């Protein structure tokens, strides 16, 4: 074992893990908030994320085709596409709730879950169809910004790109804003009340339907932002991009304790770091027998282990069995 090598790449691995982890945390929020109010695994959330990514790339590409991309400040462009991705993804999530989940609210648990899977598949192909008709391609590449790709060197073997700092900072800002919204505002109190007990919240004058829609709006917006940041960070996006990050983010939500907002953030970070470690060190520690391809298996194994030994997650409360 080459411990020197292990140590040398460690900072790089941590940075990769943080970028990934914040991305998972942003997506996981959508899962955890919806689960909090509806006890539904919103399977379509991974596609909300993907749509956010497409909104970002579409705006950048159309700016590029008009020749405006070089003229605006990259950070302004970045803020613009993140906001646009948030709006579109948030509204889409609300529409999905209205069409596919609200009619099923009193049905047995598995019914809305199956409907959610349907939405997820539908959205994948809907985006694929639109993009094929519109651009004649559905694997799209983000135009790159020189400033964002610049690398900052710290010492000999450690360097990281500006965009990973941007991704981390943006995610952190959104997570803090969300925590403030949920803990400190009237709206946040209403969301927590609905999550706690719908009938009672409704008796106290909370408009439950509106709060549920709002939850989807916020969760969807976070997912959309994550989609744009994902595109900026990893450059490419396609209609099936959402699936794996979606499952990972769900794992993160469960890891942190589903329904628990700080839990989703912690879970996302832990999972991101673990995955980065697995991707970099798995082949090193097994002498090349198992490479980075196994990082997905690694994540799923964590999910299964957590569910078996600590189904409440790291920060979770006891979840009641709905009898």
């Amino acid at each position, binding site marked *: 074992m080459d411990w020197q090598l292990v140590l040398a790449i460690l900072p790089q691995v941590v940075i990769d893990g943080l970028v990934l982890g914040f991305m998972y945390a942003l997506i996981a929020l959508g899962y955890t908030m919806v689960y909090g109010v509806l*006890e*539904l*695994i919103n399977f379509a959330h991974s596609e909300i994320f993907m749509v956010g990514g497409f909104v970002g790339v579409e705006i950048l590409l159309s700016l590029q085709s008009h020749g405006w991309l070089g003229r605006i400040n990259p950070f302004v462009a970045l803020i613009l596409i993140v906001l646009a991705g948030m709006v579109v993804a948030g509204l889409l999530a609300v529409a999905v709730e209205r*069409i*596919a989940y609200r*009619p*099923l609210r*009193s*049905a*047995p*648990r*598995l*019914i*809305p*879950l*199956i*409907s959610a*899977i*349907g*939405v*997820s*598949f*539908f*959205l*994948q*192909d*809907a985006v*694929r*169809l639109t993009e*094929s*008709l519109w651009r*004649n391609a559905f694997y799209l590449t983000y135009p790159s910004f020189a400033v964002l790709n610049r690398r900052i060197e710290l010492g000999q073997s450690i360097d990281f790109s500006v965009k990973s700092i941007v991704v981390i900072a943006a995610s952190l800002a959104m997570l803090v804003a969300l925590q403030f919204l949920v803990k400190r505002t009237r709206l946040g109190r209403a969301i927590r009340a609905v999550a706690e007990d719908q009938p009672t919240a409704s008796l106290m004058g909370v408009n439950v339907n509106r709060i549920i829609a709002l939850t989807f709006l916020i969760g969807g917006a976070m997912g959309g932002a994550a989609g744009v940041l994902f595109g900026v960070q990893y450059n490419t996006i396609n209609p099936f991009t959402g*699936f794996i990050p979606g*499952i990972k983010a*769900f794992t993160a939500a*469960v890891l942190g304790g589903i329904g628990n907002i700080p839990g989703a953030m912690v879970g996302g970070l832990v999972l991101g770091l673990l995955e980065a470690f697995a991707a970099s060190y798995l082949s090193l520690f097994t002498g090349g*027998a*198992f*490479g980075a*391809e*196994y990082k*997905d*298996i690694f994540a*799923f*194994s964590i*999910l*299964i282990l957590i*569910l*078996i030994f600590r*189904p409440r997650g790291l920060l979770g409360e006891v979840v009641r*069995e709905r*009898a």
Partner: protein
Amino acid sequence: MSGREPVTGRAAITHAAVLVLIAASATLVYALPRSILAFMSFQASLVVVYYARLPARAKLGYGALILGLVMPFLGSHNAYYMEVAIQVGIFVALALGLNIVVGLAGLLDLGYVAFYAVGAYTWAVFGSPQALKLFPTATGLFPLDGWWFFPFLALGLAVAAAAGVLLGLPVLRLRGDYLAIVTLGFGEVIRVLANNLDKPWNVTNGPKGITPIQRPPLFFEPALRVLGFEVSPFALYPLYFYFLVLAVVAVVIVANRRLERSHIGRAWEAIREDELAAQAMGVPLVRMKLLAFATGASFAGIMGVIFSAKQLFINPESFTFLESIGVLAMVILGGMGSIPGAIIGASVVTILNLQVLKGLSLWLNELRNAGITILGYNLANLPSQFEPAKYERMVFGIILILMMIYRPAGIIPARRRRIETAAPPEGAAR
């Protein structure tokens, strides 16, 4: 049906009508080999037989006539229909297996094709030169002789069932929606393994897949020759696989019916309706759930073995999440927990995929090429990306959403559910 005495005149008319329908639709298929509608009318004749006011034995007879005689006859004239029929049969067996897990026991399994993959790889590895890469010293033993296919049917079943138990043991204590995600993860794990287990030991040959896979021997060929039929193996294999699949489907249907009516089936349905109540009534939850998982998995395993032998080649692409959801869509379309529902669901979805969507694509292509103008829009400008055959995800998605909202019990609701929906008990809303 049992309430009224059969009137002989009426029964005769029904018999005649059914026979005429079968003959007419078969003739149509024979005369119009490219017409999808003709083939669909032929399939509809099976449904008509199922719903006709006839004694069960007569229905069975007509079913056997259609599937055992007319279909092979049509199929040997048009290989494409034979292929469609085999595919439908495979998916019927898969849907029936998943129906036990999802429909009867109420456990949402999103990684069902993993068991299909396990069965397929079981035969593919040992029935092909692939095994030599694993055991380089065993030259002469591998690839196994075609005769081994039959023991491997049982082995594939057993391995898949064991995989079901292995997955089930840790996760079946989880609540329903968690179980769904874990099974999904398991499905992905199996696919990733299939994709990457070409090192350190080359088990699956990775994304390149395994080929050529042995086919079962044509042991009846000499007998056919004696009877005066000279058929090339090339033409014989589709028929062979057709009957093999048909036989397995028949066994699966019988097993399904027997299970559904046994105390096991009732225990499954009790678990589906209310786990806590079932447990209070003395249903051993974990053991029953494991049994459901293993039974469902075993059907997939046996079909996997047949699939790999039929295709001669398998790779991980055949066992994606899309396939799992496809099978789920079949079960849900037909009606969760309903055996005829699963059969109809599997047939409709497979035919939709293989024929209707492809047909639409071809038709649109022809329109494009013809360049007709409709309402001032020249169809030649129709984008070539607009190909319905490529959008099966969208079709599955729409099926799932619409069925859940408008008809959660499916096209043919399970009998018990039908009774329940006819007279809703008080306080039924949950």
